[in-house]
């Protein structure tokens, strides 16, 4: 049952991802990107990372996607070109070099994953399974994450908040018009 739902979510991710890269209309691709992100949040829940899934929905769907739709609407010449192109062909013509390169990369990665799986797992995974130190579905991960953020990972947490502030100020400065401040 669990496995069936996992397969459904991964099928949604992969088909929507393939549609995003093959559709001609950029607006449709942006809204399918939304579907991919939601299904990825579902996959995160299967890896017992519920807080990551919530953050994914809030940050990506609430922030990143809105920004992308804004940028797409503001570059409206491309929008008109895309809408006119969409009347003719539904799917864009793929160019074979990129397909060849990505499929080659996929083959290499899948082969190495299978190879790695057949040898053995890393040592820390086997010792953690033996010591029963793996995360279970009944654990309260959010409480543990909060404790870890405030104790062991306090310095990276502060650094990344300063970084986020700097990046957002930089983005606001870059998108400001030059003539009239």
């Amino acid at each position: 049952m669990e496995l069936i739902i996992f397969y459904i979510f991964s099928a949604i991710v992969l088909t929507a991802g393939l549609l995003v890269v093959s559709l001609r209309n950029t607006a449709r691709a942006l809204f399918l990107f939304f579907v991919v992100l939601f299904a990825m949040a579902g996959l995160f829940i299967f890896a017992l990372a519920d807080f990551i899934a919530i953050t994914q929905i809030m940050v990506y769907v609430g922030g990143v996607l809105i920004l992308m739709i804004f940028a797409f609407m503001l570059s409206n010449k491309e929008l008109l070109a895309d809408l006119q192109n969409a009347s003719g062909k539904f799917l864009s013509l793929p160019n074979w070099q990129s397909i060849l390169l990505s499929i080659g990369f996929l083959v290499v990665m899948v082969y190495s994953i299978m190879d790695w799986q057949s040898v053995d797992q890393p040592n820390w995974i086997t010792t953690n399974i033996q010591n029963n130190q793996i995360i279970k579905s009944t654990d309260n991960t959010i409480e543990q994450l909060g404790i870890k953020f405030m104790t062991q990972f306090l310095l990276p947490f502060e650094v990344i908040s300063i970084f986020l502030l700097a990046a957002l100020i930089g983005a606001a400065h870059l998108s400001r018009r030059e003539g009239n401040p």
Partner: protein
Amino acid sequence: MITLTHFLIVSACLFCIGLYAVLAKRNAILILIGIEFMINAAILNLVAFGRYDKLVYGGQIFALFAIVLAAAAVAVGLAIILNVYQHYKSINPDDITDLRD
């Protein structure tokens, strides 16, 4: 039982879709979406491995950091795309050939 391999295969496929988008697309926003696909594949790997690490929670915490970094990258990248659009009236990376005007 969902094993580690399932997650790794799904994230490898998603990574390759993102790679194709980066290589083949002629629209800067779609290239940014391809980069997001690759970052999401990496986050799925981090989370899948982090399940076996109850002492440190390293995978999940690093996944949160990666999400924040991706959001910051998108904000700056879209600001740059808008500036380039105002200058060149196009967001096709093939058209943008000059570093300075």
